[in-house]
């Protein structure tokens, strides 16, 4: 019995660390939904775009993936800002369905652009140092999983501080709470949506980098990531940062444990089925408001 528990420790810890990566992937979606009540069906593809951007930079300039982020994050922010400002703000005014159709269109375009530019083969951003493992007696922790988790926590603390402390952050939260009241206070709500979407895309870039350092990716990984992100956001409640982290860890643990008990092919199936079950039992999520 005790041995069995020790055996389980490894997938458990791996699941929790992996949950950090999943939470980073989901964070952007949670933010845009929490602030603008906008669902971006291209979210997963934006994450993969981040992975490919870093892949392109590392193969071209030979930089470390983490160094590429210093260029990638501002670039992604401006891409997202422009998308929201020139396309999605207008779509939102038309109807909720329009946003879904437009972002679905963006997803199709991104997938095929990446397919043309980088081909259908799977790529990764693995570096030699990432393949090391920390040997803690009974536990083996791959360094990239640990990095995923640390990065997730750092990103979340930073985002939390931004939303709580800065003027812009407060304006964003005000827009999320009450659009009319925010407008009356002189806040440019549409502008806040653009900044929010920019941040969401920057988060996608970070998530994409760590995704590539952990798993191989192809131009068509996006929809899978979208489902994972959506499941986590539903688990953790839309717009809650702590909820996203908890949701991510729950998802990661379910995935690694079902992989441990049922084999590798079943792990995604179980995790996806869990999304559907949670959605149907708790349509507003575990911590939903």
């Amino acid at each position, binding site marked *: 019995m005790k041995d069995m528990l020790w055996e389980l420790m490894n997938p458990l810890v791996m699941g929790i660390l992996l949950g950090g990566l999943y939470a980073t992937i989901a964070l952007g979606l949670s933010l845009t939904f929490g602030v603008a009540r906008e*669902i971006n069906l291209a979210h997963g593809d934006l994450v993969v775009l981040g992975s490919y951007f870093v892949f392109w930079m590392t193969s071209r300039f030979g930089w470390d993936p983490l160094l590429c982020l210093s260029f990638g994050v501002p670039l992604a922010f401006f891409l997202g800002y422009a998308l929201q400002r020139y396309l999605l703000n207008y779509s939102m005014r038309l*109807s909720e*369905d*329009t946003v879904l159709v437009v972002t679905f*269109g963006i997803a*199709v375009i991104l*997938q095929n652009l990446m397919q043309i530019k980088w081909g259908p083969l799977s790529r990764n951003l693995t570096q030699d140092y990432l393949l090391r493992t920390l040997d803690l007696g009974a536990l083996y922790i791959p360094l990239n999983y640990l990095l995923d988790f640390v990065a997730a926590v750092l990103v979340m603390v930073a985002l939390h501080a931004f939303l709580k402390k800065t003027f812009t952050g407060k304006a964003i939260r005000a827009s999320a709470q009450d659009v009319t009241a925010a407008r009356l206070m002189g806040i440019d709500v549409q502008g806040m949506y653009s900044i929010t979407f920019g941040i969401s895309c920057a988060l996608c870039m970070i998530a994409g980098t760590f995704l590539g350092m952990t798993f191989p990716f192809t131009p068509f990984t996006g929809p899978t990531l979208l489902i994972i992100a959506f499941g986590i956001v*539903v688990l953790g409640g839309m717009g809650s940062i702590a909820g996203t982290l908890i949701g991510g860890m729950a998802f990661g643990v379910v995935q690694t444990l079902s992989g441990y008990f049922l084999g590798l092919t079943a792990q995604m*199936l179980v995790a996806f089925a869990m999304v559907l079950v949670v959605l*149907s039992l708790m349509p507003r999520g575990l911590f939903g408001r």
Partner: protein
Amino acid sequence: MNSVGLKGLGAFFLLLGSIPLLLQNELLYVYVFLYLIYASAGTMWNLLAGYSGLLSLCPSAFIGIGGYTLIVGTWMGIPWPFGLALGGALAGLFAALISVPVFRLRGAYFTIGTFVVPEILKFVFLSWRPVGTTVYGRGAGYPIQGVEHIPAWVLHLLAVAVAFFCVTLVRRLTDSRFGYALHAIKDQEGAAERCGIDVFKVKFLAFLLSASLTGVAGALFYLNQRYIEPMSAFGMQWLVAIMLSVIIGGRGTIEGPLLGAGVYVLLYFLLAQYGELSLILQGLMLIGLALGAPHGIMGIIRSVLYKDRVVLDPKV
């Protein structure tokens, strides 16, 4: 509500049905067959997305289930005409199964809930082999078993019949009490409920009908294709095709999917040589139409014909 008469529809489908008598062109069969499949599936998607405000992203689930039922059925000795009906029945049954979880979701939640479904089915059919042991080709595909070549005109007439049935059914439904209930739900679900409409029942029925007929269309498509594998059967391409057909033509109109599917098939064949570029163009069209002409071709036609009257539902 419906500007197209039954006579006009009848004449249109009669014309399509008489193609085998007039012209014997292999390529024309291919075009028109695909057109009819997209028109059928598009019409059934329109019943949900256009008339009921249910933006479902899982028509490919029903297409795939219909197709798998037919092809796996031929392995078990089920004759293909029964396979077609069984495909529709199983797609409907599956819709009934998932309706409990997905109808607890509203608006965008519903959309994402349905988006998960084909992805799950992809994983299921990649690993699950209901019959046979040998794997054919990449993935977990199945060729059709023991059905000799079906003449093109038979398939063609079947497709015409299915499309005609779908279109007249939706036309009939939307002009009935049931259709008005759907419309009320689309406009304001809470208000509809308080007016005494059994919201779940009405949505459930619409979902069930849409699923089973999409299943029949899928089964028919794979009867012609003679091979099925999970990645394309449950793939995004189906969703893009169906969505574009309806959005090009005009959501919430009877003629919309019929027109849109025509434009889509034409574009598809014109752009086929460009591969991924064609898909990028399709994505751009989706965005452009959603923003520029949310009511599609029918919206433009109607706004020209009836300038002074509001004939289109503002909420699409």
